[in-house]
């Protein structure tokens, strides 16, 4: 027998030991998740009846614990309620003795999970072994799709924001036509005017970025508060990382400065009389 099989055998023994310590007259113990306990107004010590179908609720059990399940993004939208039972109690209830969906195997230190799974699969018949890494990867497919969707939406919004920013900066600089004309009339050099307008554009972009960062934090907090309440979970839905802030601020500054530079260049190369409206 390989170390892997021994380990799985130990798991089954543990379950048997749990059963053997129970008094025969005791009802099977059931652990109920907090949301379900709250919905059914259950407390520890209450007796409940369970069954595999609505017309065969004959299995009695006692609530031994109420637990808070680990937040699972894959489960929140389903709105399902969970309870936990000892394996023999559950198989008896379902009428499927000695049948399980899956077995978990803990490996001894230094053994690769992938090579152990491959070794098991070489002789597998009627089952399939997967390493935890592969299962995690497979079960995160949904989130990869959501992530790709978010990225695509983000690209569209970034392009929209970029065009918006370019437009606003252009208008902002063009608003200074009269000021630029006056400066040119009194002999201020084009380069100085260009520098002043560019500096103004960068300052506006920097201030806008700061304000935007603050707004993003507020929106993120509101999003988390809303969805945590909506799904009754502790999961984080909106996470603003330093990388995201860095990217957004840099993009705003580059676009702001770029738009400001284009607009300022156009302005300083326009005749002062035209800027004054008399050209």
């Amino acid at each position, binding site marked *: 027998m390989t170390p892997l099989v021994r380990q799985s055998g130990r798991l089954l023994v543990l379950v048997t030991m749990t059963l053997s310590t129970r008094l025969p007259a005791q009802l099977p113990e059931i652990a109920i998740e907090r949301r379900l306990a709250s919905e059914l107004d259950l407390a520890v010590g209450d007796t409940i009846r369970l069954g595999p*179908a609505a017309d065969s609720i004959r299995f009695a059990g006692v609530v031994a614990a109420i637990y808070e399940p680990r937040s699972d993004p894959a489960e929140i939208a389903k709105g399902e309620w969970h309870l936990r039972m000892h394996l023999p109690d559950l198989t008896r209830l379902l009428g499927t003795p000695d049948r399980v969906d899956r077995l978990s195997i803990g490996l001894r230190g230094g053994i690769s999970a992938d090579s152990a799974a491959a070794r098991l699969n070489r002789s*597998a018949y009627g089952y399939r072994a997967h390493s935890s890494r592969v299962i995690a990867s497979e079960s995160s497919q949904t989130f990869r799709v959501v992530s790709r969707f978010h990225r695509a939406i983000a690209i*569209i919004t970034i392009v929209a924001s970029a065009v918006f920013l370019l437009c606003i900066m252009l208008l902002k600089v063009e608003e200074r036509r009269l000021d630029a004309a006056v400066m040119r009339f009194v002999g201020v050099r084009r380069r100085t005017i260009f520098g002043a307008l560019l500096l103004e554009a960068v300052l506006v972009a920097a201030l806008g970025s700061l304000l935007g960062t603050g707004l993003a934090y507020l929106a993120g907090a509101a999003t988390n508060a809303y969805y945590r309440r909506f799904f009754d979970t502790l999961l984080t839905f909106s996470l603003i990382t330093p990388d995201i802030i860095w990217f957004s601020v840099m993009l705003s500054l580059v676009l702001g400065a770029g738009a400001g530079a284009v607009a300022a260049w156009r302005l300083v190369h326009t005749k002062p009389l035209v800027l004054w409206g008399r050209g």
Partner: protein
Amino acid sequence: MSGLGWGLKSLRRHRLRAVLSVAGIAISAALLLDMVMLSGGIERSFTELLLSRGYQIRLTPKGTLPFDTEATLTGAGRLVEAIRRVPAVAAAGAVLGTSLHARRGDSLVTLFGYGIQPEAQALYTMLSGSDLAPGDSSGVLLSEPASRLLHAAVGDSVTLIGRLDPQVVTERLGRTLKVSGIVRWVYDYRGQPSVGTVLSVMQSLAGQRRDDRASLLTVRAEDDSLAATVAAGLRREFPQLEVNSVADLVRHFKQRLVYFRQLAYILGSMSLVVTVLLIGTLLTINVNERLGEIATLRALGISRRTVVREIMLEGAVLTTVGSIIGIVLGLVTARYLDGILTSFPGLPAAFSFFVPRRDSLATAGIVLLLTGTLAALYPAWLAATSPVAATLRAEAT
């Protein structure tokens, strides 16, 4: 000069800013259209999927949704007979879903198996070959992926195995069947290898024959308008079962995908805000630059109403041009986004998140046009209320 001509001339005067504004509006319009399609598309697509075979009601074990759990109901034949006797029920059938294996050379492949009643089935459409006859216990239907996986065509034989026994390394509940036809299973995800047999054969393969088990029952009312009444009647008659009409199932599904609908509303609203800001800012600056021109027109006798109309027309022109480009852009991006979302694991291949429809296009267009026109209200008010004499004096100095 007509109002439209005046607006176009004004926009031509500042080409760069007009082009940038139109580009911004186009992207906002594209995003709005996509979000309008997303918010309604999920519901429409799912409804079409459920009604693709005309069956409006599903019955499942209490507290479950079709194929959401492995729960099954017992006495399927008896239940189907009872349901068929209910007035206004045109057809009813039972379905059992289970996983099973098939032999390919010296290896085994895993398949999804449907047990169906061919005389009342709501799950597939024929692609080639012939349908199973009621009670045909020697035939099997394959999906195209299953046909490819098993290298089997119509007329070939395949061996299906219901259960493998790892303890003694033997196959149990095996059966060799002849391929009757290739079908498209309505609820299969992309590439899902599925097979279908008559209910009794699949029950035997799954070891569910003794209790006559089924995963769900499908019911077709004589008329769509009777579906809700029939569902209510079935709920009263079979309290141990979960009875869901298409509307109920759509409601459950919408609840699960509530995130996408909310995202659609938020992003749609944001795109409208961007449109308002763009048009509002552009026109306000244009009006400020043209205050002298507007004051001169007012002094010549042009009414305030005319000035307001011209400014609002300018907003409408910008929005219309941006929206036309945006709708084309939106349809292209919707295809791309739909390609991403429909790659969700386990989602039926026939499902779509972004459904382009005439009413979606019309809604997005009307909302944008209204928004763009309303965004011009402030600059129009500014133009209409500017003091004529003071503005002309200021222009002269």
